[in-house]
């Protein structure tokens, strides 16, 4: 069974997901996973879709272009490589939340993400809002990261501290458990 990754970008408004999902339905496709987000006024969605045997990705792409042309959407379809269908080797990790507050300036996301990458830490989710001004809650990056068991947290924190000083940020790296404990019953 063929799988595709389908991404949809466009100016946010009611009906985008309805139009896309209806078209997939009439073409016999099945949505396996979906995620969507809105950044300021831009809608973005990523869908993992299985196609019926008799439908090629190219055919679907041309049908979507024809049907949705009036909606000014950027649609991208890529065949899902079968190598990725296999389960990846799972390394034991622990979930942490990395937060960074501070004045907006170029290079914040890249500095933090490079630092954690150097320690083999995977970012599983990122939310960043920069509204300007000095209110910490208005300029925040929240990285949800998976830290392999055995990584030296002290060393990670030392490296993050250097970034914090250089970019005038307040960076905290805390085990996710504390947020769960204090917010979830």
């Amino acid at each position, binding site marked *: 069974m063929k799988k595709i990754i389908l991404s949809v970008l466009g100016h946010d408004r009611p009906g985008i997901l309805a139009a896309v999902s209806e078209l997939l339905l009439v073409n016999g496709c099945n949505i396996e996973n979906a995620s969507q987000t809105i950044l300021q006024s831009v809608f973005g969605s990523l869908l993992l879709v299985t196609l019926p045997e008799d439908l090629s990705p190219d055919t679907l792409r041309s049908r979507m272009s024809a049907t949705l042309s009036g909606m000014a959407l950027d649609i991208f379809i890529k065949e899902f490589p079968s190598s990725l269908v296999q389960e990846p080797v799972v390394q034991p990790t622990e979930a942490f939340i990395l937060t960074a507050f501070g004045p907006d300036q170029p290079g914040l996301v890249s500095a933090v993400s490079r630092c954690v990458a150097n320690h083999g830490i995977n970012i599983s989710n990122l939310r960043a809002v920069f509204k300007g001004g000095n209110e910490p809650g208005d300029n925040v990056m929240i990285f949800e990261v998976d830290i392999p068991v055995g990584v030296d947290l002290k060393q990670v924190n030392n490296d993050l501290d250097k970034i914090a000083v250089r970019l005038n940020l307040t960076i905290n790296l805390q085990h996710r458990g504390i947020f769960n*404990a204090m917010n979830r019953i």
Partner: protein
Amino acid sequence: MLSEREIITTLDMIKREHLDLRTVTIGINLFDCVSDDLNRFIRRIRTRIESLAGNLVEICDRIGGKYGIPVENKRISISPMAAIGAPFSARELVQVAKALDDSARATGIDFIGGFTALVEKGMATGDLALIEAIPEALAATRHVCASVNVASTRAGINMDAILRMGKTVKMAAELTAAADGLAAAKLVVFANIPQDIPFMAGAYLGIGEPDAVINVGVSGPGVVKKAVDRLLESEPDADLGRISEVIKQTAARVTRAGELIGREVAKSLGVRFGVVDLSLAPTPTVGDSVGEIFQSMGLSSIGVPGSTAALALLNDAVKKGGAFASSHVGGLSGAFIPVSEDLNIAAAAAAGVLSLEKLEAMTSVCSVGLDMIALPGDTTAEMLAAIIADEMAIGVINKKTTAARLIPAPGKKAGDRVYFGGLLGEGPVLAVNSGTSENRFVRYGGRIPAPIQSLFN
């Protein structure tokens, strides 16, 4: 997925509102260390304490770092010394106290509690020796804390012990006159003492407890104050029911943080987790004050009319939140009102808004009692005993813990200031009304009988 609001609110509580794990206290049972040979006894208890608590500081710092919540203090509580050291004289028990101080230094902890006697119904030989040893033991050590339980709802009030404690408090203060009577700040007299308090100076390990146990004390008066402030900003018409609800929810969050870290510390040390003691315990720091909560609730200062009702609301909401959040809540759990340890309360006392008598009234609804109260140096032992007796009566009749930590500051008179330093803070010397007059009542001695358990009115 955690929401941004959940993450930022949690961070604010920790970073801006002084939420911390005030203490992780390891309780160590020393009953099987007993000996009638002083050197052997000291060797055994030091070996036991230092082997069990040797890694406590390092483990607490590592786990606190992992969760981003500092463990401010690491402490040890031991089996009541009057029981395990019963064969020894007062002089020998002072040697034991010094050995405990050495163990505290060796393990890097800040206080060790359990220089304790339980005498609510009578004083045995070991109890008498321990009480006699207390002044010098506390004056000669830095880290040792003492407590004596002189009353309980089941046994009544041991007035002989109370008179003796009046003299003991006085002597402890006099032996540390140069430090404003500091030794008395490490001594608490209790009614209905809990067996699992992690906070000092009242911590000891009860005789119904296991070989070793981790109890944690979580604090956060600043967190509660900010939660009340936020509520009243967003809902200016909120009533006291809403305020209680918000305090309850906040207390539950704080308790959960404490239990998470306490359990992990216990696991790392290979000992059992005991209880979370959720107490609003202030420190002499701006924004870490119980007194400020009263102002957030609409009172001009702690001590004005309305303060007892406000404290009743606060204490009850904290207990309810804690009890909801964890199945193992213990210790004192509630709101402390220690005068010198809270900038706001000390200021109210210095301004004359908060008197000793009002504090006593408030202790009928707080979680502990007359706490860290400096009194004039010429307050007699009898008068100290009378103040203690009043406080014990409140606890015994109301089936709650009460305590007295009184410091008759040598050479100081009402209105002067005392300086204890660190967490013990500083504050004014409070007046004792009619404090120097004859007090025959406390000299009759004997026991005030245990109260009737029916006819509630």
